[in-house]
C-alpha cells in the first residue's frame, strides 16, 4: 500500500486573545494540556498516525520559539526520518506578500508540489480531538468533490463567536458557512466546522494559484472557508468522538478538567491512535508520607508533600508540606510553598507561590497566574472584581 497519500498543513491559531496571558509568548498550539501534552500534539499525532510524512506548520512569527522548543527535530513524531520534513511558514509572510502585491501562496504551493501526495489535510489547533484521518480520507475519496470539511454537532455553549457553522443540502453538499456571531438563532445544536479539511491536492494548488491573483484571503483557513459554499464543491465528514473547542480560558480549563473523567480521558488518550509528545527524562513523581492526592493527574518529576485534589500537575512541580491545591491546573516547574493554598487557578510555567500565600479563584472566575511570577501576597478573583 502506498503510504504517503496525504500531506498536512497545520495552521496554528491567530485568534488567541481570550487565552491571554497564557498565549502572550506561545501560540495556542504549544499551550500545555493534561500535565504533559501541548495542544499541537493532537494534530501532529493524528497526522503521523495516518502515515503522513510531510508536514507544514503555519505559525505566528512572534511566537515561534516555543514551537521549535517543543518540536525540536521532530524525532518523537517520526518526522526526522528520511523523506519526512516539517516546514515552517508564517502567517505574517503571506500577509506581507499580499500587501506588497506578491504571490502570497507560493510557499504553500511549493510545499504541496514537493510532497507529491494526492490529498492534503489542513487543520487548525483549536479543536482538541483525536481524529482518524485515514477514515476521513476514505469518506473524502467516496465523494466526487475536491474538498471535505470535518464538522461536529456541537451545542451553542461550546461555540465561539468567530467559529464557522455549516449547513448542507440533501446531497451532503455544503451550502453555507457562516460565522456563529452572524446567525439569527444562536440556541441549540450546530454543525460546527472543526477547521479540518481534506482537499484534492491538484485542486488546492489550482485554487491557490487563482486565489492569489484574485485577491483572495491571505490566510489558508480563511481562504478555504470562502471556498466551502461554492456549488457542489465541498462535502462534510461528521466527527463524533471527544471534542473540546478551546477558544477562551473557561473552555481551556474545562478541557483539562475533562481528563479527570475517565470516559473522556479514555476517548481522547487511550484510543488505538497514540498521542505522541516530546519525551522528557524525569524521575518518578514522589509522594511523601503526608501527601494526600485524590482525583488528579500528575506528570513525572514532581514532589508532593501536601494535598492535591481535582487538579492537574505538570512535570517538575513541587507541592510543599501543608500546601493545598484544588481544582487547579499547574504547569511545569511550579513551586507551591509550605502552607500555601491554590484553588480554581491556572499557574503558568515556573510560578512560585510563597509559603502561606493563598490564591483563590472561583468556578466562574478561574485565576490565571502568568509565567515566571513569584506570588508573594494573596490573590483572589472576588477581590479582583471588586477592584
Amino acid at each position, binding site marked *: 500500500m502506498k503510504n504517503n497519500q496525504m500531506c498536512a498543513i497545520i495552521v496554528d491559531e491567530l485568534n488567541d486573545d481570550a487565552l491571554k496571558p497564557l498565549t502572550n509568548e506561545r501560540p495556542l498550539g504549544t499551550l500545555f494540556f493534561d500535565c504533559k501534552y501541548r495542544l499541537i500534539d493532537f494534530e501532529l499525532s493524528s497526522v503521523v498516525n495516518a502515515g503522513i510524512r510531510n508536514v507544514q506548520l503555519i505559525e505566528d512569527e512572534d511566537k515561534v520559539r516555543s514551537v521549535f522548543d517543543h518540536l525540536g527535530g521532530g524525532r518523537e513524531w517520526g518526522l526526522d526520518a528520511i523523506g519526512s520534513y516539517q516546514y515552517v511558514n508564517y502567517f505574517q509572510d503571506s500577509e506581507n506578500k499580499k500587501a506588497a502585491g506578491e504571490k502570497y501562496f507560493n510557499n504553500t504551493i511549493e510545499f504541496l508540489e514537493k510532497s507529491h501526495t494526492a490529498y492534503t489535510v489542513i487543520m487548525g489547533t483549536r479543536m482538541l480531538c483525536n481524529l482518524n484521518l485515514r477514515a476521513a480520507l476514505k469518506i473524502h475519496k467516496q465523494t466526487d468533490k475536491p474538498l471535505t470539511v470535518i464538522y461536529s454537532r456541537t451545542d451553542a455553549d461550546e461555540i465561539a463567536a468567530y467559529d464557522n457553522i455549516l449547513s448542507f443540502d440533501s446531497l451532503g453538499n455544503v451550502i453555507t458557512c457562516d460565522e456563529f456571531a452572524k446567525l439569527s438563532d444562536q440556541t441549540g445544536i450546530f454543525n460546527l466546522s472543526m477547521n479540518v479539511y481534506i482537499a484534492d491536492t491538484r485542486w488546492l494548488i489550482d485554487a491557490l494559484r487563482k486565489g492569489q491573483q484574485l485577491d483572495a484571503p491571505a490566510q489558508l483557513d480563511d481562504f478555504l472557508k470562502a471556498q466551502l459554499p461554492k456549488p457542489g464543491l465541498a462535502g462534510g465528514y461528521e466527527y463524533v468522538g471527544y471534542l473540546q473547542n478551546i477558544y477562551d480560558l473557561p473552555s481551556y480549563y474545562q478541557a483539562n478538567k475533562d481528563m479527570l473523567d475517565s470516559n473522556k480521558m479514555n476517548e481522547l488518550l487511550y484510543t488505538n491512535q497514540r498521542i505522541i509528545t516530546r519525551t522528557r527524562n524525569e524521575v518518578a513523581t514522589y509522594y511523601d508520607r503526608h501527601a494526600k492526592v485524590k*482525583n488528579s493527574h500528575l506528570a513525572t518529576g514532581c514532589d508532593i508533600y501536601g494535598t492535591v485534589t481535582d487538579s492537574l500537575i505538570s512535570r517538575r512541580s513541587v507541592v510543599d508540606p501543608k500546601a493545598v491545591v484544588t481544582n487547579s491546573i499547574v504547569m511545569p516547574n511550579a513551586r507551591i510553598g509550605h502552607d500555601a493554598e491554590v484553588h480554581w487557578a491556572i499557574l503558568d510555567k515556573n510560578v512560585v507561590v510563597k509559603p502561606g500565600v493563598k490564591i483563590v479563584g472561583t468556578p466562574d472566575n478561574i485565576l490565571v497566574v502568568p509565567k515566571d511570577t513569584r506570588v508573594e501576597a494573596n490573590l483572589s478573583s472576588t477581590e479582583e472584581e471588586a477592584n
Partner: protein
Amino acid sequence: MIMNDEMLGIVLAGGKGTRLGKLTQNQAKPAVPFGGRYRIIDFTMSNCVNSGIRNIGVITQYQPLVLDRHIGNGASWGLDRLDSGVTILQPYSSPDGSKWFAGTAHAIYQNIDYIDSINPKYLLVLSGDHIYKMDYSDMLQQHIDNGASLTVAVIDVPWEDASRFGIMNTDEHDRITEFVEKPAEPKSNHASMGIYIFNWARLREVLVNNFTKNDNMLDFGKNVIPYYLDSGEPVYAYRFSGYWRDVGTIMSLWQANMEFLEPNNGLNMQDRSWRINSRSPLAPPQMLTDTAEVSQSMIVDGCYVAGKIQHSILSANVRVKEGSQVIDSMIMPGASIGRDVTIRRAIIGENAVIGDGVTIDGGDDDIAVVGNGETLGGTSNEE
C-alpha cells in the same frame, strides 16, 4: 570530560542473572526494571555519557530482545549523533565457527574487530547490572597519573561481607598486590566493582597471545587480573566511595528499590548535572482517583491508581484497582492489579496480571515474586 575517543566503553550485558529467578526468564539482568522509570543498565549507560564517553559497545548474549529494544540506536542517551554511537555486540558465526562468549574476557576477544574499528587508547569494561553514579573520566585520570596498565574500581564493603566479594589487596600507593575471589579470611575490604580500565594495546596483545595458544584467558576476574598481577603489570585500585548496589538477588533488588524511595539515598536523582536517562514510554500522565491513597511512594506515567499505595514503586502503565493495597513493593511496567488485592514485600513482574482478591505477601524475612507476564487468580471481564 574526555575530548576524543580516547576511551571506549564496553558494557557486559550478556549475563543471565540466575539469582533473579523468574525476573530474568525472558530478559537479561541489565534489562530488569528499576526505580519506576529505569532499567538497570540505564545507570551504566548514563554514567558513560555523563563521563564524556561517546562510543559504547553493549555485549549481549542471554535473552537480548528486551535489552536490544531498550537501547535501540542510543537516542535515549544522546548516542545517535554524528560522532557517537552505541553498538549491540551479539554472538555471531564466521568462517572460524560460532563466536559464543564463554567468559567476560572472551567476549572482549571475540569483539576485537569492533574495538579496533574505534581504535581507543583505553578500554573501559563495565558490568550493566549495578546501581550507582560514577565519573569514569576521574578514574581514567588516575589511571593515567599512576601509569597503570589496568585500574580496577573498588569500594570498601563492611568487613563481615568481604568474603562474598572479589577482594583487592593493595599497597600504600593503591597498587594492587593480590586479588582473592571470595576469601574466607579477607586481608582487606576493597571489593572489586567489576569496572576496569585497560590500556587497550596491552590487553589486546595479552588476549591474542593467549587465545592463539589455548582458552585459559576466558574471564577477567578468574584469569586476566591474576595474569596481570603475576606478570608484574602495574595494576592499581581506584577507590569509589559513593552509593553503589549490586542488585543480583531478589532481596538486593528489592532493597535497592526501597532505598530508592528514601529522599536522601545517596543517588541524588534530582541532580540535573548527572542525569540518569532512559527510554521513555509513550503514556498519558498518572491518574489517581478519588479512592487513591498514596504515601512514601513513586509513580510514573501511564499509571492508574484507585487503591492504597504505601512505600512502593509503580513503574509505567501499572493499574491498581479499588480496594487493593500495595505495601513495601516494587511493581514493574504494565502490571495490572485487580480489586481487593493485597501485595506486601513483593516484586511483581512486567505485564503480570493479579486477579481480584489475591494476596501476595513475602512475609517478614522474604520477598514474594510474580514473574513477567504471569497471571494469578481469576480476572474479571468488566473492562
